């Protein structure tokens, strides 16, 4: 799984930031057939988690009804500088993890 994450590097304390994530994954629903008519077995990402300040701030559970290469946009409130961790887990338990640094500054004026 290759993941792309968009998050501002710097933010004012208290700001609500939009985070966008995109992870490459076919998300085979288990309902589709290939060119010779054989059912393609289900293969999906089950869970996505975003951790900030050692807390889970956002969690998503996917079913086969999520489009291939799952895209998510959600929000977090900037509180203090630190790591923002992004974790995807597929149905086989395989994990992809990425960490971004967020710098929180006091509001200028």
């Amino acid at each position, binding site marked *: 799984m290759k993941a792309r994450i968009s998050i501002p590097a710097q933010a004012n304390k208290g700001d609500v930031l939009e985070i966008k994530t995109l992870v490459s994954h076919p998300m085979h629903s288990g309902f589709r057939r290939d060119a010779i008519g054989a059912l393609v077995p289900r293969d999906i990402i089950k869970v996505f988690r975003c951790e900030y300040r050692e*807390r889970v701030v956002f969690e998503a559970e996917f079913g086969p009804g999520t489009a291939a290469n799952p895209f998510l946009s959600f929000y977090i409130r900037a509180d203090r500088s630190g790591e923002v961790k992004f974790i995807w887990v597929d149905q086989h338990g395989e994990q992809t993890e990425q960490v971004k640094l967020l710098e929180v500054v006091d509001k200028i004026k």
Partner: protein
Amino acid sequence: MKRRTVIVGAAVGLAVQLVPSVLAGKLKKTVSEFYGQENITAGRVHLKTPPLAENGNSVSLVVEVDSPMTEKNYVQEIRIFADKNPVPNLASYRLSPDSGKAKVATRIRLSNSQIIVAVARMNDGTLWSGSSETIVTLAACVEPLL
């Protein structure tokens, strides 16, 4: 002034009545099977999907819930249902007061033209719902993978 109040009141009443009636038939069954006897109120949840989707394999969806997202008052969970899909329970999102804003965007698959419902659970336990209808011209799951 009085007449305006009456008109506004009537309009609000009509809107409140219209929204739950959308939750008809199988969809209502799907949602109530999930939540059991719990009471779901229409409102506070704004679900946006395109009115017409050319390809059911990737349909953009935005759900937003009216909530201040503070420690005392926040959205705990949002669930998306589409009963004409082989798996109607599309996705669920768990939020926290640290989210700051109860808004999630994603892309879903739709196997048919249908009404999609989002149900939000607040931290006080109450359930709220919103819905949106999308017409799909090319459904997901039909065409073979090449």
